[in-house]
């Protein structure tokens, strides 16, 4: 059969011919091409600028210290369970999965199985491990490894306590393409873009399929956007719905695909996708979504959990598994079915995955700022080494010294004691408190307000108030550093006196009890906080000497140049007092307080390690004598009420402080492990009607009673020996004498007066012997 001759194309109409010959047409066309070219170049620049630059402003992530578990560790079950709850560990009958634990009674204590999740710390990777240990008398014992690598010390993942955010609060955990689990990619592609690896950015086939599905359903049931288009929409464009935005989206998708690989695009999509909201903070990316919904890293999710994350893409609010679990379940099962339809998962495992309940953590693990006072300190210390902009955008990981167990107990102690005290003060009483590690200088807990979540004025760092008798240890230490002249049994005059200054002002210190005590020992002067005796001692020593001691103790503020400083007319913040007392607790070594251990990049590379440094600034013998006196203060002096609550085995040392008209109530004290400084007062500086003993000491005691810890053990010093003294005359005497007390003395005692048990001087031979 002869082929039919192809019909000749019709000749252009006269109008068209005219148009094609018209110079105006070419001008318009040129302009159009030019505009198109400029538009494409503009979009291209936009696409490349953001994709090749820093894609997201990543907030710095701030972590608490990681809990370490080892044989011999002091650990209380209540405290441990509080911390495990923070870390989203689930209590179960058997600890079968990472992130779970089980508790059984054993003897007078407990046995615990704890399945620690895999996690990363600076320079360290901890694989998941199941351990078993006993808690008897608040001590870990019998530690054994049931599953995983055997070690002597196990570290839990640190609690992420806060982020340092840019203006817009977004949380994301960046992952590389290699870190994306293959089942996640498969579920994602099956649900959102089946032809992802075939199309060039837009998929006409998908658009047609979606249009047909929508037409059949009579409503929008399917989108035609590719993953690339979704990424462009979220990453570059506004939420505006217009044809022009759609055109931009299509062109940018083509450009993105032209410039970058599919892996790059998928990786960016996986880190950018919006998956939920935690208060004011948006959760982006599968990495953070995994922590937000499941409390564990993406790599540890099972297929049904990965499918839920994919299910959320369509509408994180509508399918929120916490608020709408049925919707979430239905959508998740649809994702699983689509993965099965595409051949990514076999029917049986798909059926098993669909049968799984939605098992998400009850409370999101995202904490924006749980401990504002501590974070404030961390930021101040970071600003010495890092730019504010970097803290808000580089995704730095900040590993701090915060101990969540101690912080929680400090908050509980305040919550328990403050209402009672506040009732006497029209609810206007305020507080600041700082807990540090003795000898380590690590800041472990802080309260800047009686309401722990309050983000305003941080009294622990910024409330500089007169410290009253808290300063007295510096006065007595100044004396004890001169062993030729002073020892704990040295006598001080406690009779009232008056000083008249050149300008006509007078100073007449008086004791708190309003009495004079004639002569008291140095030990008594400090134990009972006698103002007159202390003022006289200070005047003997001189203001300059006491200043020098304070400076050595780490007080780094302008000092009051008048004798009133001997009684605490010197303003310091609780944090500054902590530094001062840390030197005393550390045997005369200055240990700078620090709140940060390490800073790493977002990828875990070490940037800064804040090491431990010390300097001996005071003779340890003198500090030993002071520690002894401060222990006596707690045993039988102004701090003795603490032992109404504390066990006698917990030896502690401390000092109360009260200022004029009871404006400030202070206490500073330490055990073998912890130093706590507490201040109570009012912001308007009015009277609190509290002394150091009836106010701050109560909070301190309540805190210390909740923490298992080691007592303060005084180590005998070179050249310090114990001697017996009579408690009336404070002369040397014998152990067998009634009322004799044993005191440590630095140096020789040959020149000290001695007396016999009958009260006569040892060199007094008596009238009978003298007569003969």
């Amino acid at each position, binding site marked *: 059969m002869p082929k039919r001759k192809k019909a000749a194309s019709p000749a252009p109409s006269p109008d068209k011919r005219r148009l094609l010959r018209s110079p105006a047409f070419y001008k318009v066309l040129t302009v159009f091409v030019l505009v198109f070219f400029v538009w494409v170049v503009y979009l291209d620049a936009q696409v490349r600028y953001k994709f090749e630059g820093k894609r997201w402003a990543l907030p710095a992530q701030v972590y608490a210290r990681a809990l370490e578990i080892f044989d011999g560790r002091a650990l209380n079950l209540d405290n441990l369970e509080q911390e495990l709850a923070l870390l989203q560990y689930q209590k179960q009958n058997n600890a079968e999965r990472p992130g779970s634990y089980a508790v059984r009674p054993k003897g007078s204590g407990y046995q615990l199985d704890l399945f620690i999740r895999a996690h990363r710390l600076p320079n360290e990777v901890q694989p998941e491990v199941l351990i078993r240990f006993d808690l008897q008398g608040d001590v870990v014992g019998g530690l054994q490894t049931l599953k995983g690598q055997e070690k002597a010390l196990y570290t839990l993942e640190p609690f992420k306590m806060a982020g340092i955010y840019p203006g817009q609060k977004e949380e994301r955990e960046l992952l590389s393409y290699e870190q994306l689990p293959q089942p996640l990619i498969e579920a994602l592609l099956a649900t959102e873009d089946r032809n992802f690896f075939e199309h060039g950015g837009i998929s006409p086939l998908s658009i047609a399929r979606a249009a047909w599905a929508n037409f059949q359903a009579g409503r929008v049931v399917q989108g035609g956007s590719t993953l690339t288009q979704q990424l462009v929409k979220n990453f570059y464009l506004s939420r505006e719905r217009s044809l022009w935005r759609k055109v931009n989206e299509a062109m940018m998708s083509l450009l993105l695909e032209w410039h970058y690989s599919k892996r790059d695009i998928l990786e960016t999509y996986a880190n950018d996708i919006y998956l939920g909201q935690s208060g004011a903070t948006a959760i982006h990316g599968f990495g953070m979504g995994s922590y937000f919904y499941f409390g564990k890293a993406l790599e540890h999710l099972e297929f049904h959990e990965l499918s839920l994350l994919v299910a959320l893409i369509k509408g994180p609010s509508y399918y929120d598994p916490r608020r709408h679990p049925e919707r979430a379940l239905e959508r998740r099962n649809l994702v699983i079915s689509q993965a099965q339809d595409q051949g990514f998962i076999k029917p049986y495992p798909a059926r098993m995955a669909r049968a799984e309940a939605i098992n998400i953590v009850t409370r999101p693990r995202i904490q924006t700022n749980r401990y504002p006072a501590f974070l404030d300190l961390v930021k101040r210390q970071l600003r010495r080494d890092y730019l504010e902009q970097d803290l808000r955008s580089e995704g730095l990981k900040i590993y701090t010294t915060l101990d969540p167990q101690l912080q929680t107990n400090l908050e509980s102690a305040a919550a328990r004691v403050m209402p009672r005290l506040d009732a006497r003060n029209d609810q206007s009483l305020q507080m600041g408190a700082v807990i540090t590690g003795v000898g380590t200088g690590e800041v472990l807990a802080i309260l800047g307000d009686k309401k722990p979540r309050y983000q305003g004025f941080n009294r622990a760092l910024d409330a500089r108030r007169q410290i009253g008798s808290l300063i007295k240890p510096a006065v007595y230490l100044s004396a004890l550093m001169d062993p030729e002249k002073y020892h704990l049994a040295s006598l001080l005059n406690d009779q009232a006196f008056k000083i008249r200054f050149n300008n006509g002002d007078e100073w007449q210190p008086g004791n708190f009890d309003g009495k004079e005590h004639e002569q008291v020992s140095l030990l008594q002067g400090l134990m009972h906080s006698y103002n007159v005796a202390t003022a006289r001692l200070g005047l003997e020593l001189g203001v300059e000497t006491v200043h020098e001691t304070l400076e050595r103790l780490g007080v780094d503020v302008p000092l009051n140049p008048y004798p009133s400083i001997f009684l605490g007319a010197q303003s310091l913040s609780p944090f500054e007092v902590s530094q001062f007392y840390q030197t005393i607790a550390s045997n005369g070594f200055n240990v700078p307080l620090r709140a940060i251990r390490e800073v790493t990049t977002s990828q875990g590379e070490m940037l800064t390690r804040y090491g431990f440094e*010390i300097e001996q600034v005071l003779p340890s013998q003198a500090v030993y004598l002071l520690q002894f006196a401060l222990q006596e203060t707690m045993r039988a002096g102004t701090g003795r009420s603490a032992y109404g609550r504390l066990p*006698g085995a917990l030896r502690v040392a401390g000092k109360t402080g009260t200022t004029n008209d009871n404006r400030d109530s202070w206490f500073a004290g330490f055990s073998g492990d912890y130093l706590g400084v507490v201040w109570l007062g009012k912001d308007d500086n009015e009277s609190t009607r509290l002394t150091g003993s009836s106010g701050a000491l109560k909070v301190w005691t309540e805190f210390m009673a909740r923490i298992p810890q080691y007592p303060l053990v005084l180590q005998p010093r070179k050249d310090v020996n114990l001697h017996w003294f009579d408690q009336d005359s404070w002369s040397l005497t014998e152990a067998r004498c009634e009322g004799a007390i044993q005191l440590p003395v630095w140096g020789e005692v040959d020149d000290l007066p001695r007396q016999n048990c009958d009260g006569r001087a040892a060199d007094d031979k008596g009238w009978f012997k003298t007569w003969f």
Partner: protein
Amino acid sequence: MVLTFKNQKITAFVILLSLLGACSSVKQRQVVAVNSVDSGAPATTTSDAPLSVPLPPVVTSLLQQAERDIDAGLYQQAEKRLQQAQRIVPAEPRVYLVWGHWAQARQRPYQAEQMYRRVLSLSSRGTSAHAAARRALEAMDIHREY
């Protein structure tokens, strides 16, 4: 005087001895548990026996690892282990003894001196840690003592 490498090895040996020599101790550090029943003030304030106390095995292990890290030049790792050990037993002189060794290896003689001084402040005469710290200070030509 800066210690030579040979001296450092000797110091390490002394430290190891002091770690092992802790077995003769009679006193164990006791945690005071929450809700202990013996409330009330202690009868007296006393100086406690300063005898060498057996280190918790985890601390012994950390110190030995730190020593190995120092010898291998892994100073960051060694420092991390020392900080871990310090947090467990902040008043343990043997921790600071190894830390002094670490500071010497890092050519930080002033920090080394301070660490050895800390050992002296936390231990009493007659203990191996005390003796090792004294020897280390003498080797550094430091004789002044607070």
